[in-house]
């Protein structure tokens, strides 16, 4: 029964990924812009163009190209980047950890900020504090992440320059890392000097990504908390003598968190989508930044590889959310 559900789930994931692959493959070939024209100097002969086109397999029909690429992917070969002339899979896995670290730090910040303001707002419901939280979250939500990025650059990069506004790590530093997860590895190696340098680079893009998500979490969780706080078992806990904060944390939070959890799953995928432009803004060397270069250079294999990895990430996040949901709700677990 469980195995059957798991297999069905796996199959839908594969169908989703195949659909994404088809759409990306076709769209970037139909859209205007020619990768070969970008590579050659002006005045190249038609013969040169044709030769290069054949070299990258672009002289065949889209259907043929697709199946050649797909058979490569099945063997783990995502092709060679046109602009960087390196293995696509290697390039993607080299950059993915930077983006994952940024997204995870942003997610943790969003949950921390959103959760705290939601609990505070629910505890102080009906007061000026709740109104203030509502106004703040309204503002955080209606300003998009890249605009927050610009605001933060102005505030903490220019006016009060306490953070670094570009890059992932200071280039003069000697890095002992064996993985690309610099931030997590610096924590594990207890090299907090490096952690601090990484944080100084990461904090602003992470905040920019986190603020809109924090606002959504704050609004939804506060609403769910306020609904739960009128229920009988919460009233009973108050009669028992528990303070409002204890009541929220012990009785209400777990039950109120379920709808928010689903939303975080969906919104986290948007946040990862947001890394593309925010990484560009802060010259952060992640996958999103590379994606923009790939699009500008019409680097077809690289675009395909990046999009497919993003798609896989989204599908896995949804799976994780479903599993957490079952874990948190005893009625689902035993039913």
């Amino acid at each position, binding site marked *: 029964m469980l195995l059957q559900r798991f297999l069905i789930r796996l199959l839908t994931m594969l169908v989703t990924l195949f659909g994404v692959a088809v759409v990306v493959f076709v769209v970037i070939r139909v859209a205007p812009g020619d990768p070969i024209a970008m590579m050659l100097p002006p005045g190249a002969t038609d013969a040169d163009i044709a030769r290069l086109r054949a070299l990258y397999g672009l002289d065949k029909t889209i259907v043929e190209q697709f199946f050649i690429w797909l058979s490569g992917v099945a063997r783990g070969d995502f092709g060679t980047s046109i602009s960087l002339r390196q293995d696509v899979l290697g390039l993607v896995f080299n950059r993915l950890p930077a983006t994952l670290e940024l997204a995870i730090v942003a997610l943790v910040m969003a949950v921390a900020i959103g959760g705290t303001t939601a609990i505070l707002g629910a505890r102080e419901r009906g007061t000026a504090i709740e109104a203030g939280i509502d106004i703040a979250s309204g503002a955080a939500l209606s300003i998009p992440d890249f605009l927050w990025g610009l605001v933060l650059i102005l505030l903490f990069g220019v006016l009060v320059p306490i953070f670094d506004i570009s890059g992932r790590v200071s280039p003069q530093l000697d890095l002992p890392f064996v993985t690309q997860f610099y931030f997590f590895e610096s924590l594990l190696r207890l090299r907090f000097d490096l952690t601090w340098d990484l944080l100084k680079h990461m904090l602003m893009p992470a905040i920019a990504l986190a603020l809109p998500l924090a606002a959504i979490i704050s609004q939804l969780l506060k609403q769910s908390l306020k609904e739960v706080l009128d229920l009988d*078992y919460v009233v009973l*806990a108050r009669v028992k*003598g528990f303070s409002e904060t204890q009541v929220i944390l012990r009785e209400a939070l777990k*039950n109120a968190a379920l709808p928010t959890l689903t939303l975080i799953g969906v919104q986290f995928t948007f946040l990862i989508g947001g890394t593309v432009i925010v990484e560009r803004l802060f010259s952060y060397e992640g996958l999103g930044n590379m994606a923009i270069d790939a699009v500008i250079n019409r680097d077809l294999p690289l675009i395909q590889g990046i999009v497919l990895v993003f798609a896989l990430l989204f599908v896995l996040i949804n799976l994780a959310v479903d599993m957490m949901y079952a874990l948190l709700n005893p009625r689902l677990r035993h039913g």
Partner: protein
Amino acid sequence: MSACLDIANLSAVLANGQRVLRSVSLTVQPGEVRALVGESGAGKTMIGKAVLGVLPSSVSIVEGDMRLEGEDLGKLPPKARRALIGARTALIPQDPLTALNPSRRIGPQMTDRLVRILGWSGDGADRRTRQLLDEVQIRDPDRVLKSYPHELSGGMRQRVLIAAAFAAEPRLIVADEPTTALDVTVQKQILRLIAALQREHGTAILFVTHDLGVVAKISQKVSVLYAGKVVEEAGTADLFAAPRHPYTRALMAATPRYTDPFASLKPVDETVLAGLAAEIAAADQAWRRPNG
């Protein structure tokens, strides 16, 4: 000796200024069961919630005193009031299906007040809880304590809630229509159980109900409530023998009897309702809302 609960002249209003409790006064002596009877919307649950300090935010108390064993609840700072209420009172809620947290096991829900508010040891609280489960005739405490609420029937959950209410030996229990949400066969058992535990522990109960049949079985004193106003107050036996207020007589006439269920069902008379409306209007005219 001071009364267990002494409510004097309590008035409460909604945010729009509408009066929902009209100068209510009542006392519950130690070890006594005081029934608070009235139709839905009469404000009887509101009185219970006011005593326990859990009124909804839309209702505010504008006048009156509530004394719990002589301590003026209105004069205590919020933290001390919460501690006092937590230590000396308990609530048996109306709907056992919603009064237990669905994501927590029964055990910790029963012991958390003993351990975290009253400072008992975990072992002591566990022993006490098992003793009370035995008193409410739950024979497999191990299974019940480990269960989640959805794994127990409504009657079982109400037993659990009754056991939890008596566990800390409160001086006063507010029972808020504790049998209304249960089916009829279970109602009787639960009522007997509450009566038995009340006698044994000598706990005072403010028993909120709309059911005069329940009043007759469990209480020594009755307050009849209409539109937030106490219209009649008497010993239970006296009330049933000689109801003075026309509304009380009408309520009794509207209570079904097993011997002759249809003949006994009479809606409350128009003239009685008109009389009540005049009485309420006169009371409101005489009342001036105090400042602050």
